[in-house]
């Protein structure tokens, strides 16, 4: 499909911003000033001021001489970036691919979008009307290449809709500035009397490159469509995303549920076709007042089962505040994994970990108490007890090594080993008695020591000598001595309980 691009040019971006906030400025000429080399320069002027001669770059004093009623406000350099970014985010309602075009424009990749609005003409009209209603004056153009759309938006005299494959013709009457080249090159072209693209576009390439440089050639090629220009979207495009614009703003729970169900069905259909399942999903609601409400869910196993996913969202739907209404619903799946659906049937009746009912149960529990509460462990190749197992990332992850059972390990373990008082007869012998929580345990039987060294590449410290002991009541404990007996710095700890 042929690419289509829209360039939006904000004629008076910063001054419009001030006018929106201070409506009384609407009918007065005003400029934004900033100090530069000891004088005040005009950084931006509104439409009236510009028409009356207060141009950007003039000294404020000069402009005041021409236009005594001129008002001046302080320029905010940090405003532009922030403002442009916010506008770009807002423009996602027109197309998913929106890129910034500093200092005063944005670019949209609208390939396959405008037919939803009933054609290019009404699409552009809608964009202009939406921006005008928010108080921003814009000039908009649509074309097959970014270069031509950009040029036509700023310098186009006739229609701003450049039909498909007509971008070359549209480029011809434009001035050289429309090619987005440096001012030096524009000056040089003017000096040579080249005031329209058509005057030089058919000149030999080699001489154009020699005279005006590589950058100029690149811009020219991009405008014609010989070079491909890539937009950098402000929001990376999720490969699995579904959108549902609404004709009327939605503000009821039933409406949101219907929208969510529709999006889930569309997304799950695509996932099923690709044999994928989603691990996380984000449901975004774009409100008409410009705010975005969103809820996120996660699953423990890739899933494309609408009913289950809907249930996960359902618990959180009440947190969405529709306020005046929601005009666009977007469902994204940022994390998808392979999921072969025909395997489900095989495991339907057996009570195994692979059973989808288990992952659905876990998702339900995680939805209420948070997924950080759910743990599954896999063996890890470490002797150090605290590191002998690791957290599994999913229910499907298989152990890469076997669980060891050659050394005795306690069934219950203390998260942090606790200090105990010990009487031990001779070095490397198990203790005779120990005192834990004020209770004296006389040791009858003991096994050990099992020395576990620190893994120096992970952690520094002393080794542990573990003893398995049994007291006269028959309770079995796991004790260890930290450090060498003859060091005088050793300490005894209790670490666990045996069955």
């Amino acid at each position, binding site marked *: 499909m042929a690419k289509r691009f829209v360039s939006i040019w904000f004629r008076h971006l910063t001054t419009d911003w001030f006018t929106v906030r201070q409506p009384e400025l609407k009918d007065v000429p005003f400029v934004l000033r900033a100090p530069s080399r000891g004088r005040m320069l005009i950084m931006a002027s509104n439409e009236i001021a510009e028409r009356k001669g207060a141009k950007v770059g003039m000294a404020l004093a000069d402009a005041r001489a021409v236009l005594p009623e001129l008002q001046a406000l302080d320029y905010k350099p940090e405003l532009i970036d922030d403002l442009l970014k916010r506008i770009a985010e807002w423009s996602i309602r027109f197309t998913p691919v929106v890129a910034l075009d500093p200092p005063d424009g944005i670019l949209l990749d609208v390939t396959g979008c405008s037919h939803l609005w009933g054609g290019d003409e009404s699409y552009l009209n809608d964009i202009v009307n939406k921006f005008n209603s928010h108080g921003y004056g814009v000039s908009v153009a649509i074309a097959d290449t970014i270069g031509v759309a950009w040029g036509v938006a700023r310098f186009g005299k006739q229609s701003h809709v450049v039909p498909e494959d007509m971008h070359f013709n549209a480029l011809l009457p434009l001035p050289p500035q429309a090619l987005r080249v440096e001012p030096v090159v524009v000056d040089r072209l003017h000096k040579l009397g080249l005031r329209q693209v058509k005057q030089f576009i058919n000149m030999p390439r080699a001489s154009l490159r020699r005279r005006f440089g590589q950058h100029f050639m690149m811009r020219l090629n991009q405008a014609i469509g010989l070079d491909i220009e890539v937009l950098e979207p402000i929001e990376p495009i999720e490969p699995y995303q579904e959108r549902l614009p609404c004709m009327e703003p939605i503000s009821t729970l039933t409406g949101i549920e219907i929208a969510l169900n529709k999006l889930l069905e569309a997304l799950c259909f695509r996932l099923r076709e690709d044999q994928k399942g989603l691990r996380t999903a984000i449901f975004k609601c774009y409100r008409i007042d410009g705010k975005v409400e969103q809820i996120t869910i996660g699953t423990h196993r890739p899933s494309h089962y609408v009913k289950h996913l809907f249930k996960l969202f359902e618990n959180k739907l009440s947190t969405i505040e529709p306020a005046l209404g929601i005009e666009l619903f977007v469902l994204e799946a940022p994390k998808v994994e392979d999921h072969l659906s025909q395997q489900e049937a095989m495991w339907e009746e*057996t*009570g*195994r*970990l692979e*059973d989808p*009912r*288990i992952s659905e*149960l*876990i998702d*339900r*529990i995680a939805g*209420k*108490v948070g997924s950080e*509460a*759910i*743990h*599954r*462990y*896999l*063996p890890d190749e470490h002797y150090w*007890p605290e590191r*002998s*197992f690791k957290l*599994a990332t999913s*229910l499907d992850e*298989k*152990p890469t090594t076997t*669980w*060891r*059972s050659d050394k*005795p*390990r*306690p*069934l*219950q*373990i*203390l*998260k942090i080993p606790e200090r105990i008082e010990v009487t031990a007869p001779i070095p490397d012998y198990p203790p005779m008695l120990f005192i834990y929580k004020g209770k004296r345990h006389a040791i*009858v*039987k*003991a*096994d050990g020591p099992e020395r576990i060294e620190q893994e120096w590449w992970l952690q520094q410290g002393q080794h542990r000598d573990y003893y*398995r*002991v*049994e007291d*006269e*009541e*028959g*309770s*079995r404990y796991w004790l260890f001595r930290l450090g060498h007996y003859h060091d005088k710095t050793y300490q005894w700890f209790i670490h*666990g*309980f*045996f*069955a």
Partner: protein
Amino acid sequence: MQTAKNDIISKLQTDILRLQGFKQERGNNSLDAGLGTIIKSFPNSTFPVGCIHEFLSQKKEDATATTGFVAGLINSLMLNSGAALWISSSRTLFPPALKAFGIQPDRFIFIDLKRERDVLWAMDEALKCGALSVVVGEMQNISFMESRRLQLAVEQSQVTGFILRNNLNKVNTTACVSRWNITSLPSEEIENLPGIGFPKWKVELLKVRNGKPGTWNMQWMNGKFAPIYRAPVITHLERKQAG
């Protein structure tokens, strides 16, 4: 005449059990879990699955012995392929140690919650999921109403639930099918070698619905239960007579 009478009585007993919800047709006769004579205490001489068992323990040491005994039961319930849930608000279980009881620790899903109220909720949810083999919940207190709720949940799904009541301070009536108390006993020497022998416990079945309570000594040996017959076995009745 006598045999005919006995037949009628045993038939009536099975009928009563069936009416009370103890079904035999699920073919779980195979599950004797190596419990030996203990199995005779249960209705139909089979370990009741698809219901809730309650284990009491006061001390950490006893709680560990209980965990060991429960792990042995889970081993035979999971049959090497099932999945189990361990729900707790104060878990100290060391997953790799389960391997010693024949369980693959990665077949366990641990749910560590902050509040005990959530444990009850999660347990209720989990017990309704027929895909699980076992659900273990660690909690301090459970009221009769709450235990009844759990019992109702398993009656549909036939999942077996174990409630481990640690740090017990008050014993109350519950709707659980059985109530156990496991305490550790000094281990026996293996062939007169020094050191610690196999885990050994005193298993007290304090209460079992439609069965006979009793006390046994038991070891966990080479991956299965090994009841000790030569040790003096004090039954509930005898203890009552003595006391």
